[in-house]
């Protein structure tokens, strides 16, 4: 081997090493859009969105699993429709906001060295919990609306638990960043000293000589925020039509068109619930049990009782909702027949599944339009809408509007 060959090989190795891909550094992101004035504003909007999602989600959780201290009114009839529609819509709108926020601060991910102190390690851990929980909530929520279950766990309790992780991590993040947030929100969006957010407040001192000049791309900071808001708005328009029927034609990504048997969508079909034979059996009886004993009613007997008609929405936890005209026997009339005036009730379905039972608190059983519904839009209930009899009560989650009723117990 000649010296020359040896030298060539060494220079080739040096050439390779020189060109080996290295992880980016915060200073590799020169765009003026990586600015704390942008991050703070996108973060503020995201914080508001998560707060709305958390509060409305907590309401839905408490309605479905009420502790002793919790009460939920029977009216206005549309209140749960509103809170749950807002929950899902705000969550979807938060997806573009989260992506823009993360993109704005993304250079910080490549801080070097990765950890500089115990405090820095704790801060990075809290940011990881924040990002993990935020993605978890928004993605599982979105996939739940699309009914795509690419996971093994039961959605409601886990979505609920991680919501607490998310709000806790947000609170910690806001507290840690409070001085930066104050400074950034106090400054005009475009007026921040032109220095990437990645380097401002960075624990590692960046050598100004090695820091590249801020890159002024075509998009302004205000423009980026406009783009975030516009994307969120577009996402809302594209999905909100299953909550606001007037927008259905343009909501191309809505979970439903609003069509269904008797003009109303169905969440769980009779076939899915395994109740077809019980519900269509000629000797169907509804048993009502209370302190005054137990009584059984055939469908004809139920139809022979005094009927009440009311317009009430089905408001699904997945966000869709639609109003319909229901006719049936007020639940309080049935309870009175077994000596259970003023009592609560447990509604039991032929459906043996997870959602085959629900509890109706006394304030709701006493409401004049809490019905054991027998017809929808003037016709007997479709099998998929709970034939022969179903509960329909005001201001209540759809999952608690128990279908295919076989038994009512006063509680």
């Amino acid at each position, binding site marked *: 081997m000649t010296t020359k060959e040896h030298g060539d090989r060494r220079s080739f190795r040096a050439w390779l090493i020189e060109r080996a891909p290295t992880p*980016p550094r915060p200073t590799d*992101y020169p*765009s003026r859009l990586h600015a704390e004035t942008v991050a703070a504003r996108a973060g503020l909007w995201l914080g508001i969105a998560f707060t709305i999602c958390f509060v409305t989600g907590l309401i839905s959780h408490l309605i479905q699993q009420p502790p002793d201290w919790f009460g939920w009114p029977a009216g206005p009839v549309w209140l749960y429709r509103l809170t749950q529609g807002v929950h899902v819509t705000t969550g979807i709108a938060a997806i*573009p906001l989260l992506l823009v926020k*993360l*993109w704005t601060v*993304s250079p910080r991910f490549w801080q070097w060295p990765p950890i500089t102190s115990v405090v820095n390690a704790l801060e990075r851990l809290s940011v990881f*919990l924040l*990002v*993990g*929980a935020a993605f*978890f909530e928004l*993605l599982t929520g979105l*996939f739940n*609306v*699309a*009914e*795509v*279950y690419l*996971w*093994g*766990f039961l959605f409601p*309790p*886990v979505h*609920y*638990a991680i*919501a*607490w*992780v*998310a709000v*806790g*991590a947000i*609170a*910690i993040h806001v*507290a*840690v960043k409070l*001085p930066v947030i*104050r*400074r950034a929100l106090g400054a005009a969006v475009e007026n921040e*000293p032109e220095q990437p957010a990645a380097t401002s407040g960075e624990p590692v001192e960046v050598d100004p000589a090695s820091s590249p000049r801020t890159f*002024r*791309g*075509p998009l*302004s900071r*205000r*423009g980026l925020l*406009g*783009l975030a808001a516009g994307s969120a708005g577009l*996402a809302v328009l*594209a999905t909100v039509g299953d909550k606001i029927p007037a927008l259905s034609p343009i909501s191309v*990504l809505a*979970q*439903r*068109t609003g069509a*269904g048997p008797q003009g*109303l969508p169905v*969440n769980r*079909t009779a*076939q*899915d619930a395994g109740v077809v034979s019980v519900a269509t059996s000629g000797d169907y009886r509804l048993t009502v049990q209370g302190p005054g004993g137990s009584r059984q009613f055939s469908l004809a007997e139920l139809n022979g009782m005094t009927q009440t008609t009311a317009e009430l929405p089905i408001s699904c936890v997945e966000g869709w909702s639609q109003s319909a005209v229901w006719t049936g026997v007020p639940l309080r009339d049935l309870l009175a027949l077994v000596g259970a005036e003023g009592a609560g009730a447990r509604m039991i379905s032929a459906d043996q599944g997870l959602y085959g039972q629900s509890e109706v608190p006394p304030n709701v059983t006493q409401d004049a339009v809490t019905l054991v519904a027998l017809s929808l839009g003037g016709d007997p209930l479709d099998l998929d809408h709970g034939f022969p009899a179903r509960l329909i009560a005001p201001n209540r989650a759809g999952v608690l509007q128990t279908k295919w009723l076989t038994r009512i117990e006063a509680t």
Partner: protein
Amino acid sequence: MTVRQPRGETATRATIIGVGVLALGWGLWLMTQQSLSDLLSAGAWFVIPAVLSDLLLLPIVAVVGAALTRYLQPWVRLPAQVALAMIGGLTFIALPFLTGLGKQSDNPSLLNRNYPLGLAAYILLILIVTGGWALARRRALRPRSGPAPRADPAAETRW
């Protein structure tokens, strides 16, 4: 730029952190009620999107953004950036619907839209609007008569 700490701010921040730790701890405690297999499944949905966003999604956006803002004709840069961001965001939200995995054969009232067609319509609309905008910018940036078109640096940053 230094920030004067308002009086009592340290206490405020400590309180918020305390509340945050409590909420976070409560959420983690609730998670301990789950079975190990459910925990692992939830853990994957917690960790993988966060990691992929930092290692895959955001770097791709950065590279695409760098290319768009440097190599395209000046008049098309901003409209292209806006179009891609809006299409990307909307497609991200459309993904679970596009899979069709949630459809149930016995329930025609569920997921009863043509999601690929709907998304395509929105994308087309975004392209038409931003395309028109790009052409208007091109006209504005190119003098009616004169030599080769030159970018107006002020128009570059015009929103």
